[in-house]
């Protein structure tokens, strides 16, 4: 994993590994046999902080549309619904983070992957994703600040 990109969230370095592709909703997708493994990016995990709870609201083997709600996640700082990255097919869920959600924190780019997925849609390159982060950072901070108030 050379030439990894880094996005500075304040003083925190959010890693954007160059060996995979991305979706705008802060998921990474990496070739895994005949499908893709999907996980949360370091940027997303940094915002969530310690993940306590992960649940899926669809069954494995479900066709999903982009931004369809498929699950939920709760952490020490946040709650969120989880949404499909693009149109595709959710094949199976990774048991590891379901049993121990902290694996999303400890190995979010590795053993903490979320599900296997198949899609024909176009995905973002690491550079494209970095541009998404740069474009959205201000807005994200404002959203968080708005909710803290």
């Amino acid at each position, binding site marked *: 994993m050379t030439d990894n990109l880094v996005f500075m969230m304040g003083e925190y370095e959010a890693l954007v590994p160059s060996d995979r592709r991305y979706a705008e909703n802060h998921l990474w997708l990496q070739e895994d046999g005949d499908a893709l493994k999907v996980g949360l990016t370091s940027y997303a995990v940094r915002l969530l902080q310690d993940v306590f709870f992960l649940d899926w609201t669809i069954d494995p083997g479900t066709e999903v549309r982009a931004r369809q*709600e498929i699950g939920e996640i709760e952490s020490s700082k946040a*709650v*969120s619904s989880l*949404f499909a990255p693009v149109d595709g097919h959710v094949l199976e869920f990774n048991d590891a983070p379901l049993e121990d959600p902290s694996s999303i924190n400890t190995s979010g780019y590795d053993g903490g992957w979320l599900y296997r997925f198949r899609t024909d849609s176009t995905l973002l390159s690491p550079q494209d994703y970095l541009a998404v982060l740069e474009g959205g950072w201000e807005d994200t901070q404002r959203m*968080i600040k708005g909710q*803290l108030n």
Partner: protein
Amino acid sequence: MASKLLTVVVSQTPSKNPAKRQLEEELVAALMIDDAVDVAVVPHLYNLDAAHSGTLFLQALQGHLVVLSWMYSRAAHWLLDRSGIKGHQVETLFDGQDEGDEDIEIPEPQGVGGVDLPDRKIYCLDLGVDDDSQVYLEEINRIGQELRADTNPTSGTLDLTDWISGSPKPEQLQRYLDPLSVLSGEGDVEPVKRRWYPVIDYERCTNCMECIDFCLFGVYGVDRLDRILVEQQDNCKKGCPACSRVCPENAIVFPLHKEPAIAGALGDVGALKIDLSRLFGSATGLDAAVAERDVELLRDGRDAVGASVGMPRRQTDRDSTQRDELDDLFDGLDAMDL
């Protein structure tokens, strides 16, 4: 007829829910025999139009008011205000109960405020807070004691002439002197039809005009002070809360909308944690507002405009390179005890 220090208004539910009706009846029955207060029953405030006898009756009341209604207190207060039933909004022990963590402070409202407020207090209680009538009666009792303690004994006796200041219209005076048809809660209360329109909370409204730019149905206008107002409320599209979503101050309330934030709840109701759903792909408030507006435009036989008209301007002139307090805030997230 001697007037009481306090009038309690029960605004009925527009639904036929027997549990709600029963709560109303228990309250009215208990309040009717309470010597300390006058009691009045009106249909749901949101459905009263300007000419309705209930509106005229309420306008004629001059003393302090407790208003019990099936709405968030903020919605009820500004609904009364727009109908000319004005006064100082006073928090009750009910307010803030369901806003969760006391550590999460709701910012002081920075709005333009109400105008021409008479020296009277209005306490709005949400009937959805509890299904036990005793809870409301205790709070009304507490408010009564607070008001009696406040009343300056030298200011004169509390009789009718003290309350009627200015020159009420003859029909208002008549309603006041003979309010039995309304007071009893029985008999032929004028029927109302269901309505749908926004209510502006002027404690929060900063007069930014984003709502008037966004709404393409001519609901909004300005008054002689160039203050935003809901001018053509019947142009509003039933079920559409799009302007409330674009309001940067959450100052536009649709009291009967299903989402608490739009119906007038303050803060994130019950939510102690940050909601990152937007980050992970849910529709933003603005997306939802654009979609809702397009649906209504198409229903009217007009063309959908998407995001081409009336988009909020507030994010266009930011300097994104300069470090500001938001960066500090974010770096401090770890240290925060949320």
